[in-house]
């Protein structure tokens, strides 16, 4: 994916552990409007393995999981409409 993804907000979840990783990312996503994109900065390992799926299961759209090459990843997520 050559083109840059336009990001509307960022959150760093490298300072917390599961399950707070997901909670912190979710709270950050709450701040955005539907359709906006959040970049979630996370550690390799459990967060990179599990947070993408948790976001998918919440109905949000995963765009990219970028390997930063330094033991961290950035997950780009487009916020879905509120599901009633």
């Amino acid at each position: 994916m050559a083109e840059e993804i336009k990001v509307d907000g960022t959150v760093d979840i490298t300072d917390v552990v599961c399950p707070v990783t997901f909670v912190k990312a979710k709270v950050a996503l709450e701040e955005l409007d539907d359709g906006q994109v959040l970049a979630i900065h996370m550690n390799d390992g459990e967060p990179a393995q599990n947070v993408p799926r948790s976001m998918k299961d919440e109905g949000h759209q995963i765009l990219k999981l970028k390997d930063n090459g330094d033991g961290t990843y950035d997950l780009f997520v487009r916020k879905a409409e509120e599901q009633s």
Partner: protein
Amino acid sequence: MAAIDYATLKKGGFMRQKQKGYFSLRLGVVGGQVTAEQLAAVTDVASTYGHGYIHLTSRQGIEIPFINIKDIDAVKEALAKGGIAPGVCGPRVRTVTACQGNEVCPNACIDSEAIAKELSDRYFGRELPHKFKFGVTGCQNNCLKAEENDLGIKGGVEVSWVEEKCISCGVCEKACRTGAISTQDGKIRIERERCNNCGRCAYSCPADAYDTEEGYFVYFGGLFGNTISQGTEIVPFIKDKETLFRVCDAALNFFNEYAKPGERFKFTLDRVGVDALKEKIMEAVAY
């Protein structure tokens, strides 16, 4: 009063207690599922005839302790009204255990409860040289410990990548716990020898770019009592239910034919040789 036929009582799930004249009544439960109606009947029997409590067994069953011999018929009748019957003990096919499966669990690859129900309908209580336990677990997480059973079933999926749907996001590569997925020039490569069929790639994929085909791993001769031994996998991943049941039939027939009375499946396999079973199992697969 007529002499008590303990063997018949045991067969019918009445387990003799230390206390003279009392039995712990084992109930017939499949895959750990008990309806509210059944629970109400169990509560009624435990309060009226037992000591007001139940015991949850290690294999997802319910026992009602302290049932007096004289109350057996009344207890059976009360349970029948609630749609629950006594279970079994002794040398026969025992309670079939299962995890909740993919009807409920997001990780499960198969409908474990449905498989357990079918196994139970087909085999529960069948007379054999010794006890025989079936267990069904939905995925590699193995919540139900498939390999502890005489015949254990573990669900899996065979995945295939659908290139045109893929958005090259990189999630699957990371979700894979066995390092089986790599990306080269925008194409996904799956190393089949590394893949453990857990399905995490497919379940985490945001673009549904994986097709999945359900299937079963089968383990034979596990036991976890006086001797502890893990069931062995002698047949490749089975992809349809008909074959699975033919394999189960073949295993039970083999056990029935070759086991000595009171000999668990593992020891029959040790004595007769796993290859002899493998031959029968592969015949069932090729059928």
